[in-house]
């Protein structure tokens, strides 16, 4: 059985008046919610930032306020202009079946939106730190092995008389120390709190390779074959730290699904309007009855201490913030494929 994550809810149709800071924040939040359809946004200033944002998100930009508020489908009008004259106009011109939220009510809504965005960032960080807890075994393995080599060689050097052997062993010690410091560097950079507005053009294959390094601490890659099909120029605009976190989670899940070995396939592709990242495993698969649940917060099938149940929930949030989508296809006993589709950004 193969299926995708459904979003089969009849959406509430919303119009946004005002495309300044408040309107843009609302737009960014509301457009991620499947139960909401933004039928249009308007502003008397044609250069308002929210209008540009709306065009990127393919949300209709409407130039006439009256045209938007008299739209037959509109169920809720959000007025974030703070303009009293507009309030009067709404009372006389809006369709009676449409609810209107304006003034301090819409201001509170905007405050809640800001608050929600802070909480999401905290949640993402908390989940990442919880995940790092499971790295202990992998870190211990990767640090103690080079330490064993260093100690053994140093003990041997105490009474080694062959100068060539001394040189070779000293070089081995230096290489082992470098390996160990690389571990600390990777992990401290991964663990840091990601700056929320640190957006840039991110190379997807480079991030996937980095994620492979990090995921090795979380799970043993024993008996796993890794296949990479990268479109070298595949890039997306987003927060590089958050994208790394997404890939680490997807790879960790994939490896954990392949208890007795298998193949991990990482795939990136460039389409005319989008870029695609796929993480596939040949693991246990996801039973059809769990398909709707896996993206819900606190859902996990992992044993206690192995998963927070927030991984896929946070992934979905990050991807939606990047104006992308995530879908899964899976077959029990055959494997799963997670497909992320992101808007394509022109190379700079």
């Amino acid at each position: 059985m193969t299926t995708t994550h459904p979003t089969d809810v009849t959406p509430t149709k919303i119009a946004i008046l005002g495309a300044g800071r408040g309107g843009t924040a609302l737009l960014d939040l509301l457009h991620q919610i499947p139960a909401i359809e933004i039928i249009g946004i308007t502003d008397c200033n044609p250069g308002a930032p929210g209008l540009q944002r709306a065009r990127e998100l393919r949300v209709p930009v409407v130039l006439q306020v009256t045209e938007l508020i008299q739209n037959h489908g509109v169920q809720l009008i959000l007025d974030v202009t703070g303009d009293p004259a507009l309030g009067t106009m709404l009372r006389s011109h809006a369709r009676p079946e449409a609810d209107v939220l304006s003034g301090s009510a819409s201001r509170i809504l905007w405050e809640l939106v800001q608050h929600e965005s802070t909480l999401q960032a905290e949640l993402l960080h908390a989940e990442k730190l919880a995940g790092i807890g499971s790295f202990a075994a992998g870190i211990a393995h990767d640090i103690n092995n080079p330490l064993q080599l260093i100690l053994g060689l140093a003990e041997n050097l105490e009474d080694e008389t062959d100068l060539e052997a001394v040189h070779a062993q000293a070089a081995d010690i230096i290489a082992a120390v470098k390996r160990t410091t690389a571990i600390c560097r990777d992990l401290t950079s991964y663990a840091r709190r990601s700056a929320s507005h640190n957006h840039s053009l991110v190379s997807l294959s480079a991030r996937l390779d980095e994620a492979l390094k990090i995921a090795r601490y979380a799970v043993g890659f024993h008996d796993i074959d890794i296949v990479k099909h990268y479109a070298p120029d595949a890039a997306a605009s987003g927060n590089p730290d958050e994208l790394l976190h997404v890939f680490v989670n997807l790879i960790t899940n994939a490896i954990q699904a392949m208890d007795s070995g298998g193949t991990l396939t990482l795939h990136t592709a460039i389409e005319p309007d989008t870029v695609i990242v796929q993480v596939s495993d040949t693991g246990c698969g996801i039973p059809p009855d769990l398909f709707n649940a896996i993206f819900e917060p606190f859902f996990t099938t992992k044993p206690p201490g192995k998963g927070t149940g927030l991984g896929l929930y946070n992934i979905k949030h990050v991807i939606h913030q990047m104006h992308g989508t995530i879908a899964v296809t899976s077959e029990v006993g055959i494997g799963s494929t997670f497909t992320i589709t992101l808007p394509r950004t022109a190379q700079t």
Partner: protein
Amino acid sequence: MSEFKSGFFVGGDACNGRVLVVDDEPDIRKVVKMTLQKAGYDVLEAENGEKAIETINSGENRLLLDVMVCDIRMPKVNGIEAIAYFRQNYPRVPLIVLTGFPDTDMATSLLRQGVVDYLVKPVEGEKLKAAVARAMEQRELAPL
């Protein structure tokens, strides 16, 4: 035959015994081998549990392997599985665990299964040699 010492079979050189080192890291096998060879042991290597089982089942090792030093986190057959196999099929061979990840629960469980020592990397050469020497005293001779 009770005076039998495995070393007599190894190319005539006096030998303190034969040790199999099982670890997926070539560096670890190299440095452990270096330490134990200096102490007069004949050292064999295996890169995972599967290879370790192959090694002990091949030729004279069936009789002449004295002690095994085994990692836990390895591909193919891991240390836990290999140790279970060795305890069942070669209970006369004392097992020493040498792991990078100190885990009290695992140590307790392994010692209950008859593992004679549980060492955590990085281990000093003196400690490793002392553990192997103790294990050598505990080995039982293969029935001929």
